[in-house]
């Protein structure tokens, strides 16, 4: 038994540890997200965006520290917290000190607490966590730490922006909130109820419910309830097939009002909604691509589409993250993570998507413009999913939730 074990272990471990060759002085960023399995689509898309951002926005601009290039190293975490922690360890062993992750707040939570402990226990191998997509508010509140930076607007900020816009529309009296039954879905619902109560005295929440994540086959019964509630607006944090299923069911049940979503675009979703979703599907996000902010923006998007025709710029903040990291490294004058972290704190950055991004020092939450965008085929410069449809900016909240409170008690080294 032991002999066999030895043989296999020996062969493979040698391969594992010796086989990874890398450019001598590049700055490596570990991309730890799902690249296989049923939810890999956002992972592979994110990887393409990271690679492109590193190439176009950093390396082609001369790199950092006088010529060092960014290198994105992909690690497949299979959307599993356990695998993420293993891959984190592998990345650290390869000398990687910057970790990017975004899919699933559960994984982000596992990573942030593991990195916090790792940095405490291994001061010589500290790691920085660039969270580009996990939007659970807790990550920059109760669970915040010095090593974690979030480049996306969190669920609370997006809801704050969304309700700012909603409050201006007197026609909206009845709001229906529906989401997946897990931390993020609950966070969206709580933020919606809180904000509507505060900002929209004439509106009421006519429905607030959670459904099991990834298990609902047919959303029709939920759609019937929404119809019965006479809702003027629906808010949902659903993503992936739960988003498509819910959206299609609501539309087919005869609903005509707006559905405000967090993630109803790209990865086949835009194409699937197609004509049906026009005039109904809205999306709240940072970084609108239609109309493009500048010629530079357009060039960037066209370049990306030319290189990755199957992917879209669906997570615009990745470009911000790459640029801000490069700036911080240059400012710090080294890749020492403590120095880079201090350089990131409070950094202001002119985003390629227009507007400014500010990394708030108190909780490491990026403050940026948040837009309400509509799913449509009119005025589209940059379509999604190789279809005629895309997202067009309707409203913008500048520096959304700039002064929002945080419960974070940042401990700095």
């Amino acid at each position: 038994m032991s002999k066999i074990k030895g043989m296999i272990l020996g062969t493979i471990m040698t391969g594992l540890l010796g086989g990874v060759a890398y450019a001598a002085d590049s700055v490596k960023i570990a991309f730890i997200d799902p690249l296989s399995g049923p939810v890999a689509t956002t992972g592979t898309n994110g990887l393409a965006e990271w690679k492109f951002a590193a190439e176009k926005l950093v390396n082609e601009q001369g790199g950092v520290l006088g010529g060092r290039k960014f290198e994105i190293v992909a690690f497949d975490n299979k959307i599993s917290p356990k695998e993420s922690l293993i891959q984190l360890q592998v990345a650290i062993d390869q000398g990687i000190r910057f970790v990017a992750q975004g899919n699933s707040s559960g994984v982000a939570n596992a990573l942030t607490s593991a990195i916090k402990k790792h940095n405490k226990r291994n001061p010589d191998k500290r790691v920085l966590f660039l969270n580009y997509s996990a939007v659970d508010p807790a990550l920059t509140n109760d669970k915040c730490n010095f090593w974690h930076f979030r480049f996306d607007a969190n669920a609370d900020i997006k809801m704050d922006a969304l309700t700012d816009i909603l409050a201006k529309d007197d026609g909206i009296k009845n709001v229906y909130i529906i989401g997946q039954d897990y931390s993020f879905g609950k966070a969206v619902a709580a933020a919606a109820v809180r904000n509507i109560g505060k900002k929209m005295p004439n509106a009421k929440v006519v429905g607030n419910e959670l459904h099991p994540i990834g298990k609902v086959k047919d959303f029709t019964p939920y759609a019937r309830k929404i119809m019965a509630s006479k809702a003027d607006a629906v808010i949902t944090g659903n993503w992936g097939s739960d988003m498509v299923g819910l959206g299609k069911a609501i539309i087919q049940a005869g609903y005509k009002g707006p559905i405000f979503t967090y993630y109803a675009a790209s990865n086949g979703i835009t194409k699937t909604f197609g004509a049906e979703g026009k005039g109904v599907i809205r999306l709240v996000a940072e970084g609108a691509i239609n109309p493009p902010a500048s010629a530079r923006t357009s060039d960037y998007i066209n370049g990306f589409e030319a290189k990755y025709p199957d992917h879209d710029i669906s997570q615009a903040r990745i470009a911000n993250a790459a640029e801000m990291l490069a700036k911080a490294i240059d400012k710090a004058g080294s890749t020492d993570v403590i120095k880079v972290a201090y350089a990131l704190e409070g950094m202001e950055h002119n985003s390629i998507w227009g507007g400014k991004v500010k990394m708030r020092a108190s909780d490491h939450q990026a403050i940026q413009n948040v837009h309400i965008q509509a799913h449509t085929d009119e005025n589209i410069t940059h379509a999604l999913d190789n279809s005629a449809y895309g997202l067009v900016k309707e409203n913008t909240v500048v520096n959304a939730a700039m002064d929002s409170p945080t419960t974070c008690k940042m401990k700095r080294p």
Partner: protein
Amino acid sequence: MELFFVNILDGLVTGLLLFMLCSGLTLIFSMMGVLNFAHASFYMLGAYFAYKISTYTGFWPGLVIAPVLVGIAGALVERYGLRRVHQYGHVPELIFTFGLALLIEEVVQFFFGKNQMAYDEPHILDFTAFTIAGNAFPAYKVFMIFMAMAVFLVLLYILTRTRVGMIIQAALSYPNTVQNLGHNVPLVFMGVFGVGTALAGLAGVIAGPVLGTFPGMAAVLGSIVFVTIVIGGLGSLWGALVASLLIGWLQTFAASYNIVIGDVLMSIGFSKPVNIDDGAFRDLWTLTVSQIGPILPFLLMVLVLAIRPQGLFGKRET
């Protein structure tokens, strides 16, 4: 009241769709003793094939061609895979289909990528058939109901009126005897597996536009199909029908009414703890039935099995 009627119809659609999957699975299980874990994967294949075909020719040819292709794939799997594993016994067979499910999902992603497919209803059925109290009922769902009914009737006819049907019926009741009747059992097995998977494929073709065509579509349905035939009773077509409808309605009504568990608990005499945020059961009090709708079938199955191991309509226990 109108909503109740709408829910009945919605549940019927879900139930009948489930039945199309379960009928094939039941046939396969009854004949061959194989719990085909990859059954939902054939459903997935059906949807993807039909999507691909629809991009060239539109929806309708896919409705015929895709199930046939899936059936052929199923027959090939039986001929070159399952038949080989058969000699080792039922557990390896089951594990074979388990691995097959994994493999099919990967192969589909290899060819089609990981995105959601924009597989849509045919344009001709893209209208509202009728409206009940403001609730639109799409024509496509009417079409789904008729298709599922047609499948059921055809199956019923074949099983009760044809020679092949007699053999299959005999196999349902006396699985060991048919071997001795001099029929070409391997051929019958291959045929049944092919037809069973083709039915799953047909379900995929029809459900793909409504329930979505994406890499996880098999996993979403995966185990629920077993749950249904286990509740209905292994080897019983009628049981599969009744259980499918039962689960269709169970899920529809569970999702439709926001019954809070806490209210139920209070109505049967429990008192709500004052400081609810601290208790270990705090989540139980705010739970609604619609939150747990999709797991109710599993609860039902465990209860049924604990009380009546052969299922509602099953005659034999395996």
